[in-house]
């Protein structure tokens, strides 16, 4: 019995935990894009995705926050219904919202790095100004890539892309940043 499976190389405990959390955050991201409201001035819907991007960076840190968003894109690309409105497959990754989607891993990594002050996971309960500026920086990344992506894929100018795909959302993001601060400030999640 005991010698039967000598060659099995177990994945380390800590890593298993991180993989599980990344997968759960990717699924949470899928749930966050399912909650999508039509936006009166843009064809792109208002979703909770960006809120989850912030939370992934804050709670999982730069490395695993970024990894979970990468996992989100991979699972969606292979057919999990995790993109806005429950759509799935490779197409959204090269479609009009591609810029947004590809920005998520970068934004989560950036938010995580700014909150935790480096690649190591530290206490995420930092001061509000730092928390907010980290998320503002993340938002900038999301919208820069989102606008550029829309312009490139749809063959329109950057200016049109900005008005069509980005402008209408800015106020909504402030609200998501406030919600994220609220969650961090509450004692909802035990310090890890």
């Amino acid at each position, binding site marked *: 019995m*005991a010698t039967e499976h000598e060659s099995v190389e177990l994945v380390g405990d800590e890593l298993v935990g991180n993989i599980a959390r990344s997968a759960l955050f990717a699924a949470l991201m899928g749930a966050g894009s399912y909650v999508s409201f039509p936006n009166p001035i843009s064809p792109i819907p208002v979703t909770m995705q960006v809120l989850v991007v912030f939370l992934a960076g804050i709670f999982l840190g730069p490395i695993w926050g970024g990894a979970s968003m990468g996992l989100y894109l991979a699972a969606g690309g292979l057919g999990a219904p995790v993109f806005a409105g429950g759509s799935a497959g490779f197409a959204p990754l090269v479609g009009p919202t591609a810029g947004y989607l590809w920005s998520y891993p970068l934004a989560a990594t950036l938010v995580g790095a700014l909150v935790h002050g480096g690649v190591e996971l530290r206490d995420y309960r930092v001061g509000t100004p730092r928390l907010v500026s980290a998320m503002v920086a993340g938002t900038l990344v999301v919208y820069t890539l989102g606008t550029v992506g829309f312009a490139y894929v749809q063959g329109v100018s950057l200016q049109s892309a900005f008005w069509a795909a980005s402008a209408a959302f800015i106020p909504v993001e402030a609200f998501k940043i406030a919600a994220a601060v609220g969650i961090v400030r509450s004692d909802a999640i035990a310090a890890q």
Partner: protein
Amino acid sequence: MIRVGDLVHRYGDTAAVDGVTLTIDDGECVILAGANGSGKTTLVRHFNGLLEPDEGGVFVNDDPVEERLVAARTAVAMVFQHPEDQLVAATVGADVAFGPENLGLDRGEIDRRVRESLAAVNLDGREDERVDSLSGGEVERLAIAGALAMQPDHLVLDEPFTGLDEPARQSVLAHLSELRESGTSLVVVTHDLRDVASLADRVVVLADGRVALDETPAAAADRLPELDVRPPC
């Protein structure tokens, strides 16, 4: 054989398991009972090295668990309190295959184990069904199949009957007796002996993280109520 010696497990300052010594022989069926919070779940998680002892040691087939993790985890399979959280794949067949795949078995052997384990819980032929379309009793049985596919010497079930209706309970119970016949030893965690007493060789009761009683079901019956465990009726 599972052997636990002077085991202590602390969460922060409080000891959830507080000096337990216990042996579970091959082929035995042991009920591990005790009040809510008495440390049952914490104790069994040491049997296959999911938790590390703060003091004392755990041996499976005479190997120390911490040093021979793979051996311990193939010898002791576990069905958790919420079976839903332990299914890792989206379809029935893929979920049962997960354990054997990790053991690096060849494909023919994996397929054989998947078929046999599903048959053991009456889910044969349903490999391609989606996990989220199963009923509560079916999810419980699928979790058991996933554990069986490891071909364990010991199967640990943490409150396997909660939420199951009478036909589902009967069916799980019937499968457990069959397993026992075939030589697998069983550890069933519960605080209600009414459902499983018929199956058991021994009843071990925990109170505040210590073994308060270790007897045959008949001998234990009288003392169960004072230990906050429901006796068989």
